[in-house]
């Protein structure tokens, strides 16, 4: 049952993703990609337990490395997306 339930989530999230992203205009595709970089840093959430749990040395090392890499994506991704989006301006209506 657990597997079926997870597959349902996969199905729904996949469709939702397609519907959402289809509406992003071409002009914002680069910020969309860097924003995706940031969101894919969600792996951080999974890596926290491996890094800080009661684990053997190897698991802790691997977990900590995963935390560091995912943090690069989260912090770097959101900041650079924000920097880019700040540049997009509308024409001044005089």
């Amino acid at each position, binding site marked *: 049952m657990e597997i079926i339930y997870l597959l349902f989530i996969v199905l729904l999230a996949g469709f939702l993703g397609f519907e959402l992203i289809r509406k992003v205009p071409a002009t914002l595709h680069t910020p969309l990609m860097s924003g995706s970089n940031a969101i894919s840093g969600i792996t951080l959430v999974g890596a*926290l337990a491996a890094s800080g749990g009661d684990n053997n040395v190897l698991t802790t090392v691997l977990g900590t490395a995963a935390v560091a890499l995912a943090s690069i994506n989260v912090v770097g991704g959101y900041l650079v997306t924000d920097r880019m989006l700040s540049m997009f301006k509308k024409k001044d209506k005089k």
Partner: protein
Amino acid sequence: MNDIETIINLAYVVAAALFILGLKLLSHPDSAKRGNFISAVGMLIAVVVTLLDQQIITYQWIVLGVVIGGAFGAWKAKSVEMTAMPEMVSLFNGFGGAASLLLGWATLSGMSMVALQTATAFTYITLFFTILVGGVTFSGSVVAWGKLSGKMSSKAVIFTGLRELSVLHLIAMVVVGYFFATDPQNTLWLYCAIALALSFGLWATISIGGADMPVVIALLNSYSGVAATAAGLATGNTILIVTGLLVGASGLILTNIMCKAMNRSLMNVLLSGFSKPVEAGEKIEGEIKILSAQDAFYVLEAAQSVLVVPGYGMAVAQAQHAVREMQSLLEENGCTVDYAIHAVAGRMPGHMNVLLAEADVPYDQLYEMDDVNPRMENYDVVIVIGANDVVNPAAKEMKGSPIYGMPVIEAYRAKTVFVLKRSANAGFAGVDNPLFFKDNTRMVLGDAKETINSIVREFGDD
């Protein structure tokens, strides 16, 4: 499920809702910045609430990882040049893939003997998938990054046996996957899986040429999300599944847009390294007419409407600020200035838009190909800056051309076309361009930035 787990999962629902809302707001430039912020808040909630997890007993390693990663990420985000965005996104795709690979590995190495024996086949298959996709994403992205940043030759590396090597890889993956799932205690299969994933990503990307990089970056972007989803399936973490899929869908949609813009299937792009290069078609006959920057100015001064078509060459010459200056002068002169951006202009989706935004060009003056083509005849002058294939009429006229069938910006239908180019050679894809030989085309040779600056100076002298 105890109380804390319930709280964590409820917070994940909130975080997922914020990610979705954030992406929804990204559908318009006015609200996009707010969307990014909301998405970041979702991430913060997800991370903070996960720290409540009772499995986590020490925090020093977590802090160490977050500080190192966060500092590097922040430095990179602040210092990166807008022209170098494709490299940075590639690199981040790679980090995302590597993080998933390491998480998959850590999950396996953290399993007790009992856990190893009781875990279902589903867990092992998804773990294997995590390691595979994560590894391919990582090594593929590193190659893409090397090609884009000029640390490696951007030419497609092709050698005999490449096809056999790839088929061998795929067979080996299935075999190793079977043993990995049936004999998980044996770490040999884990190492084999990692090695296979890394080398497959390497070969698959190294055989793809620089002009196809927008497709590759978009695809690797998608993979980095899929890897996170697989990790989520393996560890039963719903927020990873949902969020990873949002990224996966995003990358896939962009990949599809890029392929359509080049009139090629994804398979064709990925396997282009395996096919023989297309023989050059008909010879183009004609004369190239060269114009000086000064004469170009006289034409522009009289023009009522100008269309600028930028390409990667504009980024290389760092000409976007000069272009913006010229735009202001033209507008003061009573001329309208539009920009036409082809979906595959530049080295990643939307790259030109960001560069022009950086130079303060308002986004509502940027148009897509389908918006400008129907009214092309109305433009007095089209200025092509560092673009080549995206304005190449061979795509319509020459059946033998490698880019035949690709939708292009039909610049040749305008009254006059200026092509700003370093020399009269073929472009990045190495395809001859009949546009250069058209009666209404004038070539302004030299560095694009220099050319535009001299036009700007002419305006000043006036």
